[in-house]
């Protein structure tokens, strides 16, 4: 089966610094792939490339079997992919309008109540009329997730979506993510610093270290039989980051 995403010979540089070098990476349709690695490894950068928001310095990214760049990816396909960023940026409007934003871009009209359902799902229905800029960090992060989920994307890129949340909310968000994957077949790439979260949610885990994918394996193998010494060290928390 053609993978949903196929990354080949990818390199990404900022100035003279190479921050990503990935000979090959596949994301299968319908899977949850966790991306773990120390701070500065290039996780967020890789998500920007996978969302075709930035073009790689070299190499190719295939989406559904076709190579695209930010310039060549058709709008209809671009709208099947979305990212929940590490730092949520909400628009200066109501919470409900924020969640409806992506829908309005597509239809010109409003969200027909889908935005309220999405807010309900992340436990923020009571904040729908509030001004988005007044939310706490964790609330903003959940709104940011709701406005991505409401679009029902084929590929959802999550950059530490539970970083600012308390344990109860972490569980609730994990449940939402798992449900979207199970019921709607949403393919998810999940960046997380929480290896337990990766273990709970992902079918496969990829370990990114200084821009290189040192290991990609099925979740159980990754945690029980790490092949690379650095993976083992990372899992044991021996790494300083």
């Amino acid at each position, binding site marked *: 089966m053609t993978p949903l995403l196929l990354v080949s010979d990818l390199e990404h540089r900022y100035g003279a610094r190479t921050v990503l070098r990935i000979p090959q990476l596949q994301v299968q349709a319908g899977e949850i792939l966790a991306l773990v690695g120390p701070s500065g490894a290039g996780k967020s950068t890789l998500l920007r490339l996978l*969302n075709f*928001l930035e073009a790689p310095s070299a190499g190719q990214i295939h989406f559904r079997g076709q190579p695209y760049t930010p310039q060549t990816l058709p709008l209809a396909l671009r709208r099947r992919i979305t990212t929940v*960023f590490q730092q949520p940026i909400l628009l200066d409007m109501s919470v409900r309008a924020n969640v409806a*934003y992506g829908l309005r*871009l597509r239809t010109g009209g409003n969200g027909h109540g889908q935005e309220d359902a999405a807010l309900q799902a992340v436990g923020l229905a009571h904040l729908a009329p509030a001004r988005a800029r007044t939310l706490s960090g964790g609330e903003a992060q959940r709104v940011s997730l709701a406005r991505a989920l409401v679009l029902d994307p084929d590929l959802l890129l999550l950059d530490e979506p539970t970083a600012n949340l308390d344990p109860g909310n972490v569980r609730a968000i994990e449940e939402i993510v798992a449900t979207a994957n199970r019921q709607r077949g949403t393919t998810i790439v999940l960046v997380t610093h929480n290896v337990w979260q990766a273990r709970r949610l992902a079918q496969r885990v990829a370990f990114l270290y200084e821009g290189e994918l040192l290991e990609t394996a099925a979740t159980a193998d990754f945690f029980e039989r790490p092949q690379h010494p650095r993976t083992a060290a990372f899992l044991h928390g021996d790494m300083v980051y």
Partner: protein
Amino acid sequence: METILRGVVEALQLLLSFDADLREIVGLSLWVSGAALAISVVMGVPVGVWLGLRQFPGRQLLVALIYTGMGLPPVVVGLAVYLTLSRQGPLGDLGWLFTPTAMILAQVILALPMVAGFTMTAIAALPAQLILQLRALGATPAQVNLTLLYEARNGVLAAIVGGFGAIISEVGSVMMVGGNIDHKTRVLTTAIVLETRKGNFDLAIALGVVLLGLAFMANWLLLRLQGRLDPRM
């Protein structure tokens, strides 16, 4: 003190009597400055958005020119437009000198850098990640720009109202290129200069009150607009 009071009373009388001359002067002021503002907004807002977002060679020079343009003395602009439109000037054949068109042209030169410059500042102050966020949510380039304008709306509105305030109240350029011709190019500011010189302080004050009223209304409109667009209110 008494002169001022009498002036205010006369202003009210003039306004309430819908004095034809006054209406003509106010109308021309609004037409000249309104048209100049409209042209400046149509040209200046897109330029400001573009400058706020893009890096390109020569950008700094352009920005420096715009900043300089924001502080141009109206009389210098008046002189330049005068020379350009005078019979020997490069655009003398147009026959625009001493017409409202010449006044609009001069005021566009005054307002355009303000609108473009303040719009640029407001757009550049938005978080850099915002564009990526909008594109990730599926916005087309046009939708990105519109949303950025919405996010920067307070700054952009202030740019527009500031531009209007600057040109409705300036006298130097409209005097030079319009000539303050009765029933043709006389606007509030040039009329105030004329009436003061003639010693008609009552009328001059009346005109001044009207001018202040217009400026006040522009700002009031701004606040109303900001309030309507502001989810806090």
